[in-house]
């Protein structure tokens, strides 16, 4: 057996924080799963719309557009925080990771607060009529996803603040930003359909 027929990989790095990481790909695939779910819900929304002459049915108040539209301001700012955090993670810059995550979390909480305020002023619920059911399904699932990601962000802030972390956690900060970009991006079509849909396509 000859010794020469080997490929030495000892010089390759043992870690890397980038979009070539397996974890990044895995997280992206999870976003694809979520995206598929929301796409099906949107298709259902339009399918249900076809069964009605007026949408939402008479007596149901149209969804507000003012607060959800204003809520884009904190949401957009939170993306900036995500971006800082992920760039900080690549440079191993603890300060910017922390600032970024905190900005992300703070503005996201403002966004959630505005959403909560709007919720309590709606005059329909998931069980009042079909429009309410599909409206709430989309809104609720998106809120659950956002809350889940914010929990992850909060945990990362605690870990970073304690200072005992390594590459795994920095990679966590990076993919956390991937999830956040996705959740904000998917909100564009969801927002357009559930808030503006009834205004644009609601009349017979």
């Amino acid at each position, binding site marked *: 057996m000859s010794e020469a027929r*080997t490929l030495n*990989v000892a*010089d390759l790095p043992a870690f890397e924080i980038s979009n070539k990481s397996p974890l990044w790909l895995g997280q992206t695939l999870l976003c694809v799963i979520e995206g598929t779910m929301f796409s*099906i819900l949107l298709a*259902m929304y339009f399918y*249900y719309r076809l069964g009605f002459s007026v949408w939402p049915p008479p007596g149901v108040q149209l969804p507000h557009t003012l607060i959800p539209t204003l809520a884009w301001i904190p949401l957009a700012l939170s993306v900036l925080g995500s971006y800082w955090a992920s760039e900080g993670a690549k440079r191993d810059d603890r300060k910017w990771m922390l600032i970024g995550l905190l900005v992300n979390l703070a503005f996201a909480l403002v966004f959630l607060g505005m959403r909560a305020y709007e919720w309590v002023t709606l005059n329909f619920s998931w069980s009042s009529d079909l429009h309410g059911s599909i409206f709430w399904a989309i809104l609720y699932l998106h809120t659950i996803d956002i809350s889940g990601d914010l929990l992850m962000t909060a945990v990362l802030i605690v870990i970073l603040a304690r200072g005992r972390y*390594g590459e795994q956690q920095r990679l966590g900060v990076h993919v956390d930003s991937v999830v956040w970009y996705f959740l904000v991006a998917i909100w564009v079509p969801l927002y357009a359909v559930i808030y503006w849909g009834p205004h644009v396509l609601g009349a017979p």
Partner: protein
Amino acid sequence: MTPAQSPPLTAPELEEREALRRAWQHPSGIVGWFSFATHQAIGMRYIVTAFVFLLIGGIEAIMMRLQLAVHDNTLLGPHLYNEIFTTHGTTMMFLFAVPVMEGMGVYLVPMMIGTRNVAFPRLNAFGYWMYLFGGLLLYAGMFVGTLPDAGWFAYPPLSGPQYSATKGVDLWAQMITFTEISAMCVAVELIVTILRLRAPNMTLNRIPIFCWSMLVQSFMVIFAMPAVMIASTVMLLNDRTIATHFVNPAEGGDPLMYQHVFWFFGHPEVYIIFLPALGMLSSILETHTRRRIFGYPAIVLSLVGTGFVAFGLWVHHMFATGLPQIGEDYFTAASMMIAITTGTQIFCWIATIWTGRLQLTAAMHFIFGFLFIFVIGGLTGVMLASVPLDLQVHDTFFVVAHFHYVLIGGALFPLFGAFHYWFPKFTGRLIGERLGKISFWILFVGFNLTFFPMHLLGLKGMPRRIYTYSAEMGWEPANMLATIGACTIALGGIVFMVNVIRSRKRGRVAGPDPWDASTLEWATASPPENFNFVRLPVVSSRTPMWTPAQDRVTVVGLRNDRREGLVTTLVDAQPHRRFVFAGPSIWPFLAAIGVTIGLAGSIVQFSWYYVAAALGTIAFIGWFWPRRPFEVQP
């Protein structure tokens, strides 16, 4: 268990193996057992669990056949019969067929592409526990006296709050969530494993066909499974528990919407089961004909093509619901297109057999059984794709016959063939050939005896899912024949089990590569060590095991004192960097327990979802909490 029989090793390799054994050792004790995170252990758990569910589903099938054997039978009664056919279908589809294919993928893929583990070992473990708990949840209903009884696809309004008042349908709906979570975990980790962890130089056009089939299947899982979760949980379960109106016609909801969403999952599901079986078949065939598979690009493109077309077929399950004609035409055409991609593969296999030197082992018997049965099932499939014929035989035993021909013929026979073929890898011992062939013939005869008469019953108008029939219908002889056939299948199953148990103890010692096979899983010891390869292979062809030994190249320079592998580039599989696999952990198990408690509660009250979220969050924090050493040492 027999000691692992390893390929010949040099002195430095023996030393490396000792280090690797320490690094990859399973944790000890009971807590340790629940923490395993190697793909062989988890894959084998999937396979064994799935076979247990196959046994349960099989017993249910026998009960149904006994009930239908004679007219006006009172053995089971209508209610129990409904529960049995529902749990039979549910068990076979969700708890056996998909998980067993996932299990085979989890076990074999990392070895076939030349790496040490799946990319996310803990996610893998979590997926397995979710699957197990989902199955247990469904059957827990048996002990509180309520099983689902609205069929395995639970159409509303029958399954809705009005007509299914017991908790059975809720159990069914939430069990779906468990198995889907599990399937998605496997799908994500297999895609990442196949795309990023392949052996150096295993370019895309050198990936073994079984891995291609798992890759396509995993993508199908990702796009199909969200649909069934929406159907079962968002629509059906919420309508039942918190009074939403998704399937409630009184409020404008639409039961047809449920059918659309369910079959948008349900039809790809058939291919999710079927594609891995095709991949197994190609692997077995290559080894058994002593030649490279004929038409590799055509087969791979057919697999990918099937993956795409599969999403344009679902309406052919709904031809009888009164859809617009143009829609029906489209879905008829799309359904017939599947015959092209499947036909291409069948012709490639025939060409491979024709030009190779065939070895007729027990595994090959099952492959030929597949070809025979599946072609018949495919032909009745083309018949059913035509709307006029479908309207005639919709919901009759003709359909039952058809889908058993495609599912048992298309998935179970290749799976049994695969089990015979990879048995030496699983256990280190060869499976008994003689008993294997005997069990094949009993199963083959029994299968046709059971399901062929059902075609005729369906054409004579016998609807599916009736618990009995009167004598003057004239259905009794064929039904009796089918019942005799079912008992024959059971006998074949017993012979198979005897063979497995005997061979596991006393079979001939196999050695690492008893078949002189073509792909990399045979370069490992039998059964494989936890790390698969002492040195990762570098490949230079599609059939790396047929490369002469003096031309083979191996990877050196990976650290052996921890669980290290290699990340390669997506298309050309050039080494990119080293990669540390996650080690064993109890947290995936605890996370699955926490989520299970919450999801099980949610069938009673919606607020239990928050319990699932809270317990899940606690466990996930434990799972991800940083551990020493924080920095990954170079």
